[in-house]
């Protein structure tokens, strides 16, 4: 009796797991399969294309200068990660360690900034970008993405800094370290898992962002990947080149998957850091 119930329970559990896996993996699987089809093959339903065609992959690089778009995305995302980590580490030290008037207000402001809908800041940001003369440059994207990444990197790192034992800092003080040395020699090495996590999340945000990217750039040479994919056009305006769109999507997703796999362990330990004392 109990055995039968356990078997049914098990079966139900695995069914649920299978459903979740299909739900999450299917779109990506569909993108890969579609990217390997050309022409009318797109409209045939097949588990795996019998004769994979790589023409779509060649085409996006040959016809669109997609390599340039990838390079743009890498430059923008990497700069955003570097700048936001530098700023948020120094801010986190101050916000997490030093008592000053208005600290709480500042933290709450930072948190609320991260909740602004992007559309709300779009026009203001456009003014700022054109006033700074950054329109249609990668700089405009780096600047605007910091709005998206800085609040949460600062917030997460502040929490992490607070969890670090105060004695470590005091020991370093007695040893004669100045605040900047404490950050560099003591805090940064300990915070490395948290940095990897927040850095990766910032990278993903910058890599996938679409609205700022399509608003602040005009020429194809300045476009980042999401915009470039959206603007892939076919031979005529009545044709949507699904094969190439999918090929491009696969190409830009792969680096993210690889990054996440590399940092997998770090992400988990970083996200749970502070939850329990390690």
């Amino acid at each position, binding site marked *: 009796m109990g055995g039968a119930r356990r078997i049914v329970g098990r079966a139900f559990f695995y069914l649920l797991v299978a459903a979740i896996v299909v739900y999450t993996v299917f779109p990506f699987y569909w993108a890969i399969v579609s990217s390997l089809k050309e022409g009318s093959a797109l409209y045939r339903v097949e588990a795996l294309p019998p004769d994979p065609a790589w023409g779509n992959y060649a085409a996006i690089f040959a016809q669109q200068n997609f390599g340039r778009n990838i390079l743009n995305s890498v430059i923008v995302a990497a700069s955003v990660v570097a700048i936001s980590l530098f700023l948020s580490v120094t801010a986190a030290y101050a916000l997490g360690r030093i008592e000053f008037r208005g600290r709480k207000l500042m933290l709450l402001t930072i948190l609320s900034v991260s909740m602004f809908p992007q559309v709300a800041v779009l026009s203001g940001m456009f003014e700022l970008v054109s006033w700074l003369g950054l329109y249609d440059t990668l700089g405009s994207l780096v600047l605007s993405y910091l709005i998206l990444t800085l609040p949460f990197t600062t917030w997460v790192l502040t929490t992490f800094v607070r969890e670090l*034992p105060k*004695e*470590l800092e*005091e*020991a*370093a*003080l*007695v*040893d*004669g*370290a100045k605040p900047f*040395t404490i950050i560099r*020699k*003591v805090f940064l*090495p*300990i915070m490395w898992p948290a940095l990897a996590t927040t850095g990766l999340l910032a990278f993903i945000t910058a890599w996938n962002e679409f609205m700022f990217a399509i608003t602040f750039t005009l020429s194809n040479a300045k476009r980042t990947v999401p915009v470039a994919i959206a603007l892939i056009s076919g031979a005529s305006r009545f044709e949507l080149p699904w094969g190439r769109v999918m090929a491009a999507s696969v190409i830009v997703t792969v680096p993210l998957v690889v990054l996440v796999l590399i940092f997998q362990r770090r992400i988990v330990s970083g996200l749970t850091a502070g939850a329990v004392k390690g």
Partner: protein
Amino acid sequence: MAQVKLRGVTKSFGAVQVIKGVDLDIGHREFVVFVGPSGCGKSTLLRLIAGLEDITSGELLIDGERMNAALPSQRGVAMVFQSYALYPHMSVFENMAFGLKLAKADKATVDERVRQAARILQIEELLQRKPRQLSGGQRQRVAIGRAITRNPKVFLFDEPLSNLDAALRVQMRIELSRLHEELGTTMVYVTHDQVEAMTLANRIVVLNAGRVEQVGAPLELYQHPRNLFVAGFLGSPRMNFIKGVAEAVRPGQLTVRLPGGAPLAVPVKNGSRGVQAGTEVTVGIRPEHVVAPERADAVLKGGVLVVEQLGAESFMYVRTEGEQTVVARRDPSIGVRPSELVQVGLQAKACHVFGPDGLAV
């Protein structure tokens, strides 16, 4: 030479004053222990000396130099923390060398100093390990080693042994004494453990609620506590306090009527200090001075509550007349049982008398 002087030092956190005016002279090569119950301000006082907290008012002098505003690293102090506070990402060697490297010492000096400290603490074979690969006792040694390499004028210890197990604590206590002999440096040590205080200190500073209650050599404090607090704080089990009424005051002698009606004539050195016939007083006597009735000057009757067997000695808790519990140290072979009726004796010359203000007469 390293002397530490505190002059009217106070410390407030917001509206709360935690150190209420401390005057203290710590001499060269002295081992001074701050002891007191938790929250008495002993750690705060140490942190004021270290420079980890700012002094609210008063003066701190190290070797005659005013240090109130100096950075911790400029005061010539080194501190050992309760939680060790080793840098987790550095090896033992790097942990110990960190301060010297920041002070821009050349590589040969760093190497020599670290190895010398490691030799003193017998941790030479651990130098390449990371803190997480060390046991608690080894971590504590590294933390002490980190202090030694900086060659400080004053060592500051903040409850360094309280995270260790009992056996290791005894061993480290002995090593700290040896270290003090070997280095000949001034040491200031904070603990709530009176055994550590008694065994390690040249001088004990008993603190209570932000004030110094008494300063003196361990035995001096044990034998001549200035007030009820110090008398009750040092010694385990603590001193027995028996309420009584002063009956006759003569020069050099004070007769107290005990709860059972027995008179006890206690010799007093300092005069009666305002205690007159009829004043309520407290008689203090340590468990080891509660003797058998035939050797006593006064006797209390009562029923045995508990007998604690410690192997080398046993402690008998007796509920006596006047509803007071008196602890007596006895030979472990004593055959008393709970609720048995016994007599305990007090020796007049071992008694302390405290006036209504809590001060010793």
